[in-house]
């Protein structure tokens, strides 16, 4: 029984990390209708930069803030330089460009930082908390993950639902041309969407790195798990990213705990296929829009 609880708790904290990266995917999809397959690699890159900052003596929390800012700028840059020129052409081109970017970033990270395996510190202790008399598989760091993702999610919900900026961003995503006719600076807001996605991507990198191999490829699986989470929740829904993340995290955790970690990606594949067959638009999708 305690194995089940520990596996479940693992699933929750993994799920939160997937939710964080899934949030990036959702942000970009809402803003620009593109799935950014390079989002994980971008988070990997910012984490490598974080590692360098730490090596230079920066404290953890200053590094944390700096990396989020770097993620913001990185996201904006990618949109302006690579994605904007492709506007209006086939919807597959930006996807392929994002794949190319993924590969370029992994290559760059490998070339610059080399193969030496390295560790990455966690914000808090990673040893399990004690509940009653037993140690559970949920550490201070896992609590931090939970809180950080919920805070980010909450902030985004407030942004989208309650602010004028959020209203403009939503309008830009749903109806770009009409929004421009209403004076909305759609281009700027698309860039902002990518920039925010850069922040959540950077965050997820920082959350994953302590428990991973921290090679240039360490975000690959996280990305596809996040993609699965986003598809389950609905590529347009931040709340969906959270729920989808939890579902995916738990599923992966059970597969890993009872069947072996090598089968986790296959488990995700099966989960993704099932989700796409049953409800491809996701749990929290809006009714399909029609043009009148």
């Amino acid at each position, binding site marked *: 029984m305690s194995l089940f609880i520990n596996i479940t708790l693992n699933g929750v904290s993994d799920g939160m990390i997937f939710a964080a990266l899934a949030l990036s995917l959702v942000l970009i999809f809402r803003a620009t209708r593109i799935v950014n397959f390079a989002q994980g690699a971008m988070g990997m890159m910012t984490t490598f930069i974080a590692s360098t900052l730490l090596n230079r003596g920066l404290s953890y929390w200053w590094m944390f803030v700096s990396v989020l800012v770097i993620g913001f700028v990185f996201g904006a840059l990618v949109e302006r330089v690579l994605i904007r020129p492709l506007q209006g052409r086939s919807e597959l081109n930006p996807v392929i460009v994002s794949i190319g970017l993924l590969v370029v970033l992994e290559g760059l990270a490998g070339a610059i930082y080399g193969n030496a395996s390295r560790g990455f510190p966690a914000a808090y202790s990673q040893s399990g908390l004690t509940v009653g008399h037993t140690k559970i598989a949920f550490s201070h760091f896992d609590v931090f993950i939970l809180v950080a993702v919920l805070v980010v999610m909450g902030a985004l919900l407030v942004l989208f639902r309650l602010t*004028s900026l959020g*209203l*403009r961003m*939503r*309008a830009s995503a*749903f*109806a770009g*041309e*009409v*929004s*421009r*006719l*209403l*004076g*909305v*600076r*759609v281009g700027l807001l698309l860039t902002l969407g990518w920039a925010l996605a850069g922040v959540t991507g950077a965050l997820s990198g920082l959350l994953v790195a302590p428990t991973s191999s921290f090679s240039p490829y360490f975000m690959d699986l996280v990305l596809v798990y996040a993609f699965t989470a986003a598809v389950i929740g609905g590529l347009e829904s931040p709340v969906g990213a959270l729920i989808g993340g939890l579902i995916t995290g738990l599923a992966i955790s059970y597969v890993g705990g009872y069947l072996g970690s090598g089968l986790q990606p296959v488990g995700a594949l099966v989960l993704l296929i099932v989700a796409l067959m049953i409800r491809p638009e996701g749990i929290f999708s*809006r*009714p399909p*829009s*029609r*043009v*009148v």
Partner: protein
Amino acid sequence: MLEISDLSVSYGAVRALSSVTLTAEPGAITAILGANGAGKTTLLRTVSGLVKPRSGSVRFDGEEMLGTAVERIARRGVAHVPEGRGVIEELTVEENLRLATLWCIGRRARGAAMAEILELFPALVPLRQRHASTLSGGERQMLVIGRALISKPRLLLLDEPSLGLAPMVTATLMAILRRQTEGSDMTVLLVEQNARSALSVSEHAVVLNLGAVVLSDSAAAVAANDELRHMYLGF
């Protein structure tokens, strides 16, 4: 006042507008009429900046508009209600209206502006929190015209507002339009295939055929011109 001179627009090899010249006065509605494909929509889209012309000029109150970005043109006081209405379905009625106020009205005054528009279109009041996708054709048209008017535009461009609407609804809308325009300093370009209802509320009419102006005269004169009406306007 809107002054369009010698405007030519092509989509690739297809000539959409050929040397169009027209003037529209403030405080009056100018109807743009003609059959399908005459270039009426292209004309509006060029004025609002969505389409780049090959040559010509568009001056509003003395300022050249061509070459400016769409959102900047909008912020100069140009409101374009596009073909197909342009309701943002995923937003509520209130959000649709609010969106148009964000750049031009301070937060306090937004409430007042919203109230003003809802007074003009009382049918929208019970629909405020509804998603725009649930609205009927007539309700959508009220929403987009309200959304256009809420920013107190100096130039209002309407593309076939009566499309798909029942005659009663059309008549009501046209009446509201006329009342809003008279005595104001707003210039209105009204593109319509339903020439009859358009002519009944406009002062001036311009008839396009195959991208060129074939007639520009007072609305009354155009309505009285039987031969022209048969040839270009279908009645």
